[in-house]
């Protein structure tokens, strides 16, 4: 399959089932909401080394208290680790940030993690619980006194059965082209797709990883098959003349949202100078979600 002269490899991206939570941060100004959001989602690239994979959803308009709002998505492999990570991040990065408040959004209401209920102890006995009936459900809030007034946080947040690790890899022939293509892909996904985050810095990964290592302590190590400097000494997957490769990793609230992001991203990345677009997988043995690149793109681009 070719799109704008770029070969789409007949392979698939392999992704995992994860648990996600959506956290809405509001503040007196959009600037403060974004500052809190950036802090809370920092160091949230990959669960290989971080407690959670985190990112900011663009274009979130629904604000529970009418103030500027930003939506964050956090992903982990189970609810326990997700709760621990999000409680710590909200406590250190949002509770501390001027004028902020934190609310939940939609999700599977039968499964929840407790955030406000864990943070309330910071109130040292002066915290106040409030319950409101909203959408035929009783929602509990915690009001914690802080030095600029009150920090408001919902007690529990519904979790979402989600998909993490969707990906595609852009292979460029001249230095800079793959990066430009990756930037275009990220911009397109952010503009057109809802319910996904690209958790790595700028949404782009240069250190794509494979499972395992020659060092027993490491669970992941560099994806040598895509490293241009190792061509000739390892079993490389880089075609001739390829000088750089970048991976886009996508976590989403559903299979469809990740699939849509892969489609939009690949189409945007097919620019002159890009030789090939591939995807990372582990032979289909680890992750239950397989995104076949040709199948995703076929409705629009015939082989």
């Amino acid at each position, binding site marked *: 399959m070719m799109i704008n002269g770029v070969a789409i490899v007949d392979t698939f991206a392999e992704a995992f089932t994860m648990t996600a939570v959506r956290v809405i941060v509001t503040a007196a100004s959009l600037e403060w909401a974004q500052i809190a959001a950036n802090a809370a989602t920092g160091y949230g690239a990959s669960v290989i080394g971080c407690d959670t994979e985190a990112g900011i959803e663009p274009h979130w308009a629904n604000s529970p*208290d*009418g*103030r500027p709002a930003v939506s964050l998505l956090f992903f982990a492999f189970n609810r326990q680790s997700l709760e621990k990570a999000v409680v710590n991040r909200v406590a250190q990065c949002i509770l501390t940030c001027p004028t902020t408040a934190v609310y939940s959004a939609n999700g599977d209401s039968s499964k929840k993690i407790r955030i406000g209920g864990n943070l309330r102890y910071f109130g040292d006995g002066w915290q*106040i619980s*409030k319950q*409101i*009936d909203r959408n035929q459900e009783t929602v509990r809030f915690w009001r914690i006194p802080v030095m600029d*007034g*009150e920090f*408001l946080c919902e007690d529990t947040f519904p979790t979402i059965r989600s998909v993490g690790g969707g990906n595609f890899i852009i292979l460029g022939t001249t230095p800079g082209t793959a990066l430009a293509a990756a930037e275009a892909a990220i911009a397109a996904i952010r503009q057109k797709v809802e319910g996904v985050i690209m958790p790595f810095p700028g949404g782009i990964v240069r250190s794509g990883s494979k499972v395992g290592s020659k060092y027993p302590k490491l669970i992941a190590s560099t994806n040598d098959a895509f490293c241009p400097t190792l061509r000739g000494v390892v079993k490389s997957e880089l075609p001739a003349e390829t000088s750089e490769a970048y991976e886009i990793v996508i976590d989403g609230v559903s299979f469809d949202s990740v699939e849509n992001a892969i489609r939009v991203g690949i189409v945007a990345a097919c620019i002159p100078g890009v030789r090939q677009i591939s995807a990372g997988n582990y032979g289909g043995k680890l992750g239950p979600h397989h995104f076949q690149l040709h199948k995703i793109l076929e409705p629009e681009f015939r082989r």
Partner: protein
Amino acid sequence: MILELRHPLTIPLDLEGVLPEALRGSTIRDAAMRAVLHGNRNIELGELFKITPTGHDSDQCDLTFEGDLSHARNLGMGMRSGQITVKGHAGWHAGARMTGGTLLCENAGHWLGAEMSGGHIHVASNAGDQVGAAYGGSRKGMSGGRIVIHGSAGNELGLRMRRGIIEVAGPVGRFAGASMIAGTIVTGTSLGAYAGAGMKRGTIITASAVQPSAGFVASCKFRPPFLPVLSKELFIDRTVFEGVTVHCLRGDLITGGRGEIWEILK
């Protein structure tokens, strides 16, 4: 079912037990034979009310009372589900100790929703004293649910209430939220003297000037993020509470000072 009062009541009528869940599946004849206490005599409900079906009473038996029931007592007491509509006055103790369902009425007497723990009560006009209150000797008043009064309410609104929300659009009498344990009271036009006297926790929000008891201290002026969240769910005029700064009073210091009165600043 529609229960139309045949003659005006002149002596008290105890309607305890005349509930949607109790009459669900009953025939009109069964309902009419139900015993109620009228004065000091047990009589059949059908003697006082003309009962007519509404068509779908078998699976959902909502009750509509027509007539002045200001002499009635305990209407909707202990209701768990369904809806009772009163086209007129609902009497004393209406909706007391209810745990679910909805009670709609035009006016209500004293002890409306006393010690209720769930459900909704909507009063189109006025209610009497001790709305959502604890009965004498009880430790806790209302412990859940919501009472909305679009007119005025009497004294000791929310006395010893433990949880839930009471909204009153019009004037409220003295000692609102007295000895309150928790919960939220929202009032519109005026709040009587000694609001929050002896309150341990809980929040009284008012758009009027406050004359609190001596155990309250001025705390600060601030914009609570909770207020716009709450105001979205209010049934009374919510625009009064949106985007405003409040003057926060903490008290009652006699009982710990963890309660609060928010006076909306114009």
